């Protein structure tokens, strides 16, 4: 039986989960800018609570993004140290996928599709959409950047009562559009418990990346870092 450790710090909330064959243990901290200080102590307490040792963990899953660049690196760097030190695989789980998964798993939810929207700053959202099939989210639109002004045009699906909206990005959307959703949770964030469950699915399907291969999903790779203007002609 497999034990998965999961860490997420992709938003202002950070979380750690240990998923045992017989249950889930999770700790959540919603205090921004303290994640680096909180995660290992939270993990240590969870291990004690679950009565397992670090060495019983089979794989480590981390919230790969998109999300806060610094947060993604905190979760990944901590997870890398653990995975490398314990010689276990390090499995990336996309943060928006984890949000949709937690939603789809809840039997109370009846919507057919999910649109996850997190604020990416610089007048953009991180956006992804999923179709819910048998309580599992299937990707419709992969995680991508979407300018405030291009929402909802950039969305492939029509917003109506069959759609659930998840994530803080929805708080910035026109309230009339938001009111057309069948369900909306602007407080929803990616959580380690969902990352652990998705991580286990990937692990069971044979995904076993080494710790040093991991990289966050930043999406924004060409932010306007200004290149330098030179005065002399470059010498060939």
């Amino acid at each position, binding site marked *: 039986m497999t034990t998965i450790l999961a860490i997420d710090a992709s938003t202002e909330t950070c979380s750690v989960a240990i998923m045992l064959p017989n249950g889930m243990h999770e700790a959540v901290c919603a205090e921004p800018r303290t994640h*680096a*200080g*909180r*995660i*290992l*102590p939270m*993990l*240590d307490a969870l291990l004690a609570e679950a009565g397992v040792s*670090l060495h019983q963990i089979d794989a480590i899953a981390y919230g790969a993004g998109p999300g806060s*660049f*610094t947060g993604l*690196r*905190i979760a*990944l*760097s*901590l*997870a*890398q*140290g*653990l995975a*490398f*030190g*314990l010689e276990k695989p390090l499995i990336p789980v996309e943060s928006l996928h984890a949000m949709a998964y937690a939603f789809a798993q809840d039997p109370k939810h009846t919507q057919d599709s999910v649109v996850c929207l997190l604020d990416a700053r610089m007048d953009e959202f991180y956006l992804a959409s999923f179709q819910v099939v048998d309580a599992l989210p299937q990707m419709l639109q992969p995680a991508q950047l979407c300018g405030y002004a291009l929402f909802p045009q950039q969305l492939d699906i029509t917003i109506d009562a069959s759609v659930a909206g998840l994530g803080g990005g929805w708080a910035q959307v026109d309230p009339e559009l938001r009111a057309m959703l069948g369900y909306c949770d602007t407080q929803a964030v990616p959580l380690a418990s969902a990352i652990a469950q998705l991580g286990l699915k990937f692990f069971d399907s044979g995904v076993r990346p080494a*710790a*040093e291969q*991991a*990289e*966050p999903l*930043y999406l924004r790779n060409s*932010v306007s*870092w*200004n*290149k*330098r203007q*030179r*005065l*002399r002609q470059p010498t060939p």
Partner: protein
Amino acid sequence: MRVLGIETSCDETAVAIYDSGEGLLAHRLFSQVAVHAEYGGVVPELASRDHVRKLLPLVKEVMAAAHTTREHIQGIAYTAGPGLIGALLVGACVGRSLAYAWGIPAVGVHHMEGHLLAPLLEPNPPQFPFVALLVSGGHTQLVRVDALGQYQLLGESLDDAAGEAFDKAAKMLDLDYPGGPQVARLAQLGDRQRFVFPRPMTDRPGLDFSFSGLKTFTLNTVAAHAGANGLPDDQTCADIAAAFEEAVVDTLVIKCRRALEFCAMKTLVIAGGVSANQRLREKLQTALQKIGAGVFYARPEFCTDNGAMIAYAGCQRLLAQQHQGLNVEVKPRWPLDSLPPLTHYTRDS
């Protein structure tokens, strides 16, 4: 005690293994200079991203080079500050969680203490007490060092660091980043007498520095001789580089000498990137000889950022039972004289 050291405070990813009995076993560094050169300076976000990519492969490489497996490593040291917060976090998070996974202690090291102690890794190390000049792209400080871990700030730059001034002067002369070695190279072709630049804050008492005025003076001199492309002719550029370097070096030499006299000490240690400057080393040697004092510095690769100095300084702190809890803490600003004293010190045991 065998310690793995990790340095990611700025634009170099560096790892080393130091053993208190056997000395330095291995050290490796990935320089990001090429990543940042086209931006004319360090882009913090790009630096952090590159640390994530490079750190674990480097740890593996150093362990292999040191013929060390995880069972032999008894502690992990990582730079906890001062530096770029995003860059520091990568090394601190990997270092702290790796120590947790291995069940060994970890300690966050002060980057400047690392620099300050780097000359102790050399075959002929300085003896305590001494005065240290920490001079890099981020710092210009004079520190009184009575013993390991006992530091007293004597003076520091009130504005730009000396290395930062070198980088900015290089930019004005359209030289590549990092600017220090480029300005120094160009200065060798220049006439050191043609322009006379001010020696800031040397005509009044005290041990503080200021380099921002020198920067303005350089800018004005460049502008006064600029041709159509905004730059003076090549010889004038070289002359300006020479005048600039002379001014910075003279200022540092005057203050070092003053600090030694103030502390009544005969040993000066210079550390940090600018301590690799040849002109500074020559002029210090000459000036200190006159007062019967000596100058010590690290080998060139340990003047700039490196993992060896972090492994070494961390080893001393771990031997003194100073450990970091599971909470990862980094400090972008961190006064050197706020460090706890070190009661334990051995070089060989």
